[in-house]
């Protein structure tokens, strides 16, 4: 019926192997949302401009609208559904760093990856990373407070 190729692939998502049937042209965002019911990553532009679809692939933040599902085989994928009680989530709540919440999963994933890679991130590193995401509700000042508090909290923890 379809004149394009499709395949069954296995993706490792939030430390679980999930088998899913995708077209070669399906983006990872599409597969996550439509095939796997993981709707935390959001569509905002589908061409890499907004960051609402950000997830973590092998430790790096990745815009899942820019990656094909088939490309993600063999990689470790973390989505917002895989985070619980992390410092950044706590601080997003405490600092009122979201309103409508639509950009929030993307921001949180980006922040979380940043914190893992650069626990000592300074202002310019934070800006470099976070300017890939757009928030239209907040004035960003709250998001700044949240990432800074989360970095500080993470440092305060033993080990």
């Amino acid at each position, binding site marked *: *019926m*379809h004149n394009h190729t499709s395949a069954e692939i296995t993706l490792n998502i939030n430390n679980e192997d999930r088998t899913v049937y995708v*077209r070669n*042209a399906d983006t990872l965002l599409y597969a996550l*949302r*439509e095939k796997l*019911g*993981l*709707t*935390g*990553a*959001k*569509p*905002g*532009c*589908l*061409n890499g*401009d*907004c960051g*609402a679809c950000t997830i973590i692939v092998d430790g790096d933040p990745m815009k899942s609208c820019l990656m094909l599902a088939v490309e993600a085989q063999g990689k470790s994928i973390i*989505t*917002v*559904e895989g*985070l*619980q009680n992390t410092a950044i*989530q706590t601080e*997003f*709540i*405490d600092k*009122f760093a*979201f*309103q*409508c*919440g*639509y*950009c*929030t*999963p993307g921001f*949180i994933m980006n922040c979380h990856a940043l914190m893992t890679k650069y626990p000592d991130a300074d202002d310019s590193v*934070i*800006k470099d990373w*976070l*300017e*890939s*995401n*757009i*928030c*239209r*509700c*907040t*004035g*960003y*000042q*709250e*998001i*700044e407070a949240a990432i800074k508090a989360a970095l500080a909290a993470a440092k305060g923890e033993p080990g």
Partner: protein
Amino acid sequence: MSQSIGKSIYRKEALEKVTGKAKYTDDYPAAGTLHVKLAVSPYAHARIIAIDTSKAGEVPGVRAILLGQPFPLTGEEIKDRPPLAFERVRYHGEPVAAVVADTPHQAKRAAELIAVTYEPLPVINSPREALQPDAVLIHENLETYEKIEHVYPEAKTNIADRTKIRKGNMEQGWTESDVTLEASFSLSPSDHIAMETRCVTAEIRPDGFVVFSSSTQSPYMIMELMSRYFQLEKGKIIVNTPFVGGGYGGKVAVQLELIAYLATLAVGGRPVKLLNTREEDMITSPVHIGLDADIKLGATQEGKLKVAQITYLFDTGAYSDKGVTISRAAAITCTGPYQLENIWCDSLCVYTNHPYATAYRGFSHAELLFVFERAMDMLAKKLNIDPLELRRINAFLPGATTPTQIRLNESTVGNLPQCIDRLKQLMNWKEGQVTQVNGRKIRVKGVSCIWKTSTIDTEASSGVVLTFNVDGSVNILSGIVEIGTGTKTILAQLLAEKLKMDIKKIHVKMEVDTQTTPKHWKTVASRGTLMAGRALLKAADDAVVQLKDTASRVLMCSPDDLEVANDMIYVRDEPDTFIHVKDVCHGYKYPSGHSIGGQVIGRGNYILRHLTHIDHETGAGRPGPEYTVGAQGVEVEFDTKEFTYKVLKAFAVIDIGKVLNKKAAEGQVMGAMSMGLNFGSSETFVVSDDGIILNPRLRTYVPFRYGDHPEYLVHFLETPHIDGPFGARGVGEHGLIGMPAALANSLSIASGVELTMLPLTPESIWKETGGG
């Protein structure tokens, strides 16, 4: 002591939102749902000669292809718009056809294969052009359109409506003036850019119910309009609205719902989904309005304003939908927050070949204040008076009358002079407006005052139902949509305060379902807290009566002797005699088994009082409940060589009546300020001479990103609005509306040129200084 009011309570839905569990319209499973894709016009104005769907129809999975029909025509005040273009397209991006298919990519493929033959027509690119005597008519048969009362389209012109303000005696005003000032301003349309693009699903059930799920700010309006346009039974329309990913006014319009309904109708009622791409969301769906304006002010040598003559030409684009009400709102508060006895204003809603307009946060106020507050700064310069002093001299005070000739009092208008004084302190005004940083850079301060009322339907109402659970906890049901404003958390705070109970035991239903949730007119106009708040307090009173009634029989006393607090109903002067709320809120059971009472269900509603339409000849009338005022400012660092600048600080002092949730209120105001600065500094559609929008994507449109933000300083005054819950005033939009003006005022000083256009990019400043 306050239980809850004023505290920075976390949002009730906070955990859902940080874990990705909060569901928005497109997040609900779509198994069995067909997908709709639009084919849109590549021209801003053209005749449709032919449409060939044969290739599109051959794409596998295509179930239906819809084309434009002469009827129904739609539009909130004037019915001038077919849901899909018929015979003619009037803006770039206008939907021309809709394909329904099994999967999104099949629908997309087919939509691309629809071949439309166009014959281009002359394009109108601004309201001023539209008013030229020889301008092409965008709606040749304007006079034949159905319309509601109180709208006045002018036949054989491009004028969809004209609102007139005639107050005092203009001649006298000019005679009493020593100085006059004239200026013209303009700004192009732009967009809301909610991060969630608009999405709707629709189906027709076998029993005839039409069920929508929509990312909308006005689910109840969808019911109303669907029934009006398609003669559907109102009670058989159900609209579900889960979380909405930002609206800012843009999701007030009812557009995609109409197409989704036609699409489901075409496939026998099967469920269909229509999700905008970003590009469609920016231009196919309605946008933020543009404006051309002329203003003339007269004042005495001492700076007392005597007269204002204003023409606002709003760019409603191809269709009038909300443009009419927006242009009317601008007339109603046309002068900014100043006392003026003599006013002449014509505010026109003008058709052009731009994407059509809908509400945008502030509902015309950011635009009109840009005009009026720029003029105030120019006047201050001419009179050689400090700009804030000029504003203070003319500040609107209780006892004065508005442009629509309504006398306001201490409750219906906040304290503007105090806002100005506080702003002066915050901005360290006495240090002066300009500081030299180095040979090239200067730091400059600019200010603006604000006011806003909400011109909403005179019969707008809001309802709240409270249901008690067996454990004594309470559910709040309200038709407010959680678009990000946090109003539903505010409702929980109000209830906690009123019932003196722990807010953790108050549960808020976030989703709206028009069949089971009491109606809230629309989630717009900063009116949620007033209207739903008052309805909630009434519902709480109703619940308290029921609790006391049952308790009084158990405690064998009069209900008048009882109080409700801390999960108990107790005798006022003998608190040891009490019964727990949980033991009566689902009825009380005596040891014998006899029972009394039953589930406590509190009901409350609120309708705005004494609102009227305004008079067509003079504008006299009471269009809104209360006027929130404030004073705002910015401090920018400006490069005098390159005309680049950075906003270092942004200030807002707003008389909010009562702070109900401090951090939430600050967040609303900062977010609005950010949007206002973004609009003032960089947001605009870049439109070609042919009316083509050249930048309908986030890469070229330039929304603010992290790191673009200045330091925000927000202060609140608390002059109570006696009608508001605990004295609170609306504040959802007010942070935005003074920002473009304040920015333009600072940059006019910095560049030494009176800037007259938005947005203020380095290039546009350079052009206005005579560059190029």
